[in-house]
Protein backbone atom coordinates (compact mmCIF):
# COMPACT_ATOMS: atom_id res chain seq x y z
CA UNK A 1 0.00 0.00 0.00
CA UNK A 2 2.87 2.38 0.80
CA UNK A 3 4.60 1.66 -2.49
CA UNK A 4 1.43 2.19 -4.49
CA UNK A 5 0.71 5.45 -2.65
CA UNK A 6 4.22 6.70 -3.32
CA UNK A 7 3.96 5.84 -7.03
CA UNK A 8 0.54 7.39 -7.46
CA UNK A 9 1.50 10.57 -5.59
CA UNK A 10 4.52 10.99 -7.83
CA UNK A 11 2.34 10.51 -10.92
CA UNK A 12 -0.23 13.05 -9.70
CA UNK A 13 2.49 15.56 -8.83
CA UNK A 14 4.07 15.17 -12.28
CA UNK A 15 0.71 15.70 -13.99
CA UNK A 16 -0.05 18.84 -11.95
CA UNK A 17 3.37 20.37 -12.68
CA UNK A 18 3.05 19.48 -16.33
CA UNK A 19 -0.32 21.22 -16.57
CA UNK A 20 1.06 24.23 -14.69
CA UNK A 21 3.77 24.60 -17.33
CA UNK A 22 1.11 24.50 -20.06
CA UNK A 23 -0.82 27.13 -18.12
CA UNK A 24 1.94 29.60 -18.87
CA UNK A 25 0.96 29.53 -22.54
CA UNK A 26 -1.55 32.08 -23.81
CA UNK A 27 -4.28 29.51 -24.46
CA UNK A 28 -5.21 27.65 -21.28
CA UNK A 29 -6.14 23.98 -21.87
CA UNK A 30 -9.17 23.81 -19.57
CA UNK A 31 -10.07 20.10 -20.06
CA UNK A 32 -6.46 19.14 -19.31
CA UNK A 33 -6.48 21.26 -16.16
CA UNK A 34 -9.71 19.51 -15.08
CA UNK A 35 -8.03 16.13 -15.70
CA UNK A 36 -5.11 17.07 -13.42
CA UNK A 37 -7.52 18.25 -10.72
CA UNK A 38 -9.46 14.98 -10.93
CA UNK A 39 -6.34 12.78 -10.71
CA UNK A 40 -4.73 14.83 -7.92
CA UNK A 41 -7.82 14.96 -5.69
CA UNK A 42 -8.67 11.27 -6.20
CA UNK A 43 -5.05 10.34 -5.45
CA UNK A 44 -5.08 12.46 -2.31
CA UNK A 45 -8.29 10.80 -1.14
CA UNK A 46 -7.01 7.28 -1.87
CA UNK A 47 -3.69 7.98 -0.12
CA UNK A 48 -5.41 9.38 2.97
CA UNK A 49 -7.65 6.32 3.04
CA UNK A 50 -4.64 3.96 2.86
CA UNK A 51 -2.94 5.89 5.68
CA UNK A 52 -6.05 5.30 7.74
CA UNK A 53 -6.06 1.57 6.90
CA UNK A 54 -2.38 1.23 7.90
CA UNK A 55 -2.27 3.43 11.00
CA UNK A 56 -5.86 3.70 12.19
CA UNK A 57 -6.91 7.10 13.55
CA UNK A 58 -3.26 8.16 13.93
CA UNK A 59 -3.01 8.02 10.14
CA UNK A 60 -5.21 11.05 9.71
CA UNK A 61 -5.41 13.10 12.92
CA UNK A 62 -2.17 12.34 14.78
CA UNK A 63 0.87 14.56 15.25
CA UNK A 64 2.74 12.83 12.44
CA UNK A 65 3.55 14.53 9.14
CA UNK A 66 4.21 13.14 5.69
CA UNK A 67 7.86 12.96 4.69
CA UNK A 68 8.83 13.83 1.13
CA UNK A 69 12.32 13.10 -0.09
CA UNK A 70 11.79 14.54 -3.55
Amino acid at each position, binding site marked *: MLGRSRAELEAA*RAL*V*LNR*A*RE*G*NASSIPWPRIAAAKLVATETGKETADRALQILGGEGIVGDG*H*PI*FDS
Partner: protein
Amino acid sequence: MTSPDILEMDFDSYLETIRRFTDEELIPGEAAMVEAGDVPPALMARIAENGLFGITLPREWGGLDWSMEQQVRPTLEFTRASPVYRSRFSTTIGLCSQILHDHGTDAQKETYLRDMATGRCVTSFALTEPGAGSVSRSPGSASSRPCWAEAVQSWRQPEHWS
Protein backbone atom coordinates in the same frame (compact mmCIF):
# COMPACT_ATOMS: atom_id res chain seq x y z
CA MET B 1 3.43 43.49 4.15
CA THR B 2 5.83 41.69 1.81
CA SER B 3 9.43 41.96 3.00
CA PRO B 4 11.88 43.82 0.68
CA ASP B 5 14.17 40.76 0.74
CA ILE B 6 11.38 38.61 -0.69
CA LEU B 7 10.73 41.10 -3.51
CA GLU B 8 14.39 40.87 -4.57
CA MET B 9 14.69 37.07 -4.49
CA ASP B 10 15.05 34.88 -7.55
CA PHE B 11 12.62 31.99 -7.76
CA ASP B 12 14.90 29.23 -6.45
CA SER B 13 15.71 31.25 -3.31
CA TYR B 14 12.01 32.02 -2.84
CA LEU B 15 11.07 28.34 -3.08
CA GLU B 16 13.72 27.44 -0.49
CA THR B 17 12.44 30.25 1.77
CA ILE B 18 8.88 28.89 1.62
CA ARG B 19 10.15 25.34 2.21
CA ARG B 20 11.96 26.51 5.38
CA PHE B 21 9.01 28.66 6.47
CA THR B 22 6.76 25.60 6.20
CA ASP B 23 9.09 23.36 8.24
CA GLU B 24 10.18 25.93 10.84
CA GLU B 25 7.03 28.02 11.40
CA LEU B 26 3.84 26.70 9.76
CA ILE B 27 4.02 23.03 10.82
CA PRO B 28 5.36 23.76 14.36
CA GLY B 29 2.59 26.39 14.73
CA GLU B 30 -0.26 23.97 14.01
CA ALA B 31 -1.01 23.01 17.62
CA ALA B 32 -1.23 26.67 18.74
CA MET B 33 -3.39 27.48 15.73
CA VAL B 34 -5.83 24.66 16.57
CA GLU B 35 -5.85 25.70 20.24
CA ALA B 36 -6.61 29.34 19.36
CA GLY B 37 -9.21 28.40 16.73
CA ASP B 38 -7.55 30.86 14.33
CA VAL B 39 -4.20 31.55 12.73
CA PRO B 40 -2.42 33.79 15.29
CA PRO B 41 -1.87 37.39 14.09
CA ALA B 42 1.93 37.05 14.41
CA LEU B 43 1.91 34.08 12.04
CA MET B 44 -0.43 35.88 9.61
CA ALA B 45 2.14 38.70 9.57
CA ARG B 46 4.87 36.16 8.72
CA ILE B 47 2.69 34.73 5.90
CA ALA B 48 2.33 38.26 4.49
CA GLU B 49 6.05 39.05 4.95
CA ASN B 50 6.91 35.92 3.00
CA GLY B 51 4.92 37.22 0.04
CA LEU B 52 2.31 34.46 0.03
CA PHE B 53 -0.46 36.99 -0.71
CA GLY B 54 1.47 38.17 -3.76
CA ILE B 55 2.43 35.05 -5.71
CA THR B 56 -0.15 35.58 -8.49
CA LEU B 57 -0.21 39.35 -9.06
CA PRO B 58 2.16 41.28 -11.37
CA ARG B 59 5.00 43.39 -9.95
CA GLU B 60 3.23 46.64 -10.86
CA TRP B 61 0.63 45.78 -8.20
CA GLY B 62 3.17 44.69 -5.59
CA GLY B 63 3.00 41.00 -6.39
CA LEU B 64 5.81 38.55 -7.18
CA ASP B 65 4.58 37.80 -10.71
CA TRP B 66 5.45 34.10 -10.59
CA SER B 67 4.42 31.93 -13.53
CA MET B 68 1.78 29.22 -13.11
CA GLU B 69 4.46 26.59 -12.45
CA GLN B 70 6.22 28.93 -10.02
CA GLN B 71 2.94 29.31 -8.14
CA VAL B 72 2.37 25.56 -7.96
CA ARG B 73 5.82 24.68 -6.58
CA PRO B 74 5.63 26.79 -3.39
CA THR B 75 2.01 25.57 -3.04
CA LEU B 76 3.34 22.00 -2.88
CA GLU B 77 5.51 23.20 0.03
CA PHE B 78 3.10 25.23 2.19
CA THR B 79 0.33 22.64 1.75
CA ARG B 80 2.53 20.13 3.60
CA ALA B 81 1.30 22.10 6.61
CA SER B 82 -2.34 22.32 7.69
CA PRO B 83 -4.67 23.45 4.85
CA VAL B 84 -6.06 26.03 7.28
CA TYR B 85 -3.06 28.27 6.49
CA ARG B 86 -3.65 28.03 2.76
CA SER B 87 -7.33 28.91 3.17
CA ARG B 88 -6.36 32.23 4.82
CA PHE B 89 -4.85 33.57 1.59
CA SER B 90 -6.04 31.31 -1.26
CA THR B 91 -9.24 33.23 -2.07
CA THR B 92 -7.24 36.47 -2.17
CA ILE B 93 -4.48 35.21 -4.48
CA GLY B 94 -6.82 33.25 -6.75
CA LEU B 95 -10.53 33.87 -7.07
CA CYS B 96 -10.77 37.50 -5.95
CA SER B 97 -7.57 39.21 -7.12
CA GLN B 98 -7.66 37.48 -10.49
CA ILE B 99 -11.26 38.54 -11.18
CA LEU B 100 -10.42 42.10 -10.19
CA HIS B 101 -7.18 42.10 -12.20
CA ASP B 102 -8.81 40.69 -15.34
CA HIS B 103 -12.25 42.38 -15.19
CA GLY B 104 -12.16 45.21 -12.63
CA THR B 105 -12.23 48.92 -13.43
CA ASP B 106 -8.99 50.92 -13.21
CA ALA B 107 -10.34 52.59 -10.06
CA GLN B 108 -11.04 49.22 -8.41
CA LYS B 109 -7.56 47.96 -9.24
CA GLU B 110 -5.97 51.13 -7.85
CA THR B 111 -8.00 50.83 -4.67
CA TYR B 112 -7.52 47.15 -3.89
CA LEU B 113 -4.83 45.25 -5.79
CA ARG B 114 -1.74 46.55 -3.95
CA ASP B 115 -3.34 45.87 -0.59
CA MET B 116 -4.38 42.38 -1.73
CA ALA B 117 -0.86 41.58 -3.00
CA THR B 118 0.67 42.44 0.38
CA GLY B 119 -1.92 40.86 2.68
CA ARG B 120 -3.40 44.12 3.91
CA CYS B 121 -6.75 43.36 2.27
CA VAL B 122 -8.08 39.81 2.56
CA THR B 123 -11.01 38.94 0.33
CA SER B 124 -13.62 36.26 -0.04
CA PHE B 125 -16.10 35.43 -2.73
CA ALA B 126 -19.81 35.24 -2.01
CA LEU B 127 -22.00 33.94 -4.80
CA THR B 128 -25.29 32.34 -3.94
CA GLU B 129 -29.04 32.39 -4.14
CA PRO B 130 -31.71 29.88 -3.08
CA GLY B 131 -31.00 26.55 -4.78
CA ALA B 132 -27.65 27.68 -6.22
CA GLY B 133 -25.76 24.62 -4.99
CA SER B 134 -22.01 24.43 -5.62
CA VAL B 135 -21.99 25.25 -9.34
CA SER B 136 -20.93 28.88 -9.76
CA ARG B 137 -22.69 29.20 -13.13
CA SER B 138 -26.10 28.18 -11.84
CA PRO B 139 -27.35 31.42 -10.16
CA GLY B 140 -29.72 33.33 -12.46
CA SER B 141 -29.74 36.68 -10.63
CA ALA B 142 -27.84 39.67 -12.01
CA SER B 143 -26.67 42.62 -9.93
CA SER B 144 -27.97 46.02 -11.05
CA ARG B 145 -25.24 47.91 -9.19
CA PRO B 146 -21.60 47.29 -8.29
CA CYS B 147 -21.45 45.55 -4.95
CA TRP B 148 -17.76 44.58 -4.97
CA ALA B 149 -16.50 47.63 -3.06
CA GLU B 150 -18.86 47.15 -0.12
CA ALA B 151 -17.99 43.47 0.14
CA VAL B 152 -14.24 44.06 0.07
CA GLN B 153 -14.40 46.95 2.51
CA SER B 154 -15.98 44.79 5.15
CA TRP B 155 -13.12 42.28 4.88
CA ARG B 156 -10.26 44.76 5.16
CA GLN B 157 -7.92 43.45 7.82
CA PRO B 158 -6.70 45.17 10.96
CA GLU B 159 -3.28 46.81 10.57
CA HIS B 160 -1.65 44.78 13.30
CA TRP B 161 -0.63 41.87 11.11
CA SER B 162 -0.22 43.53 7.74
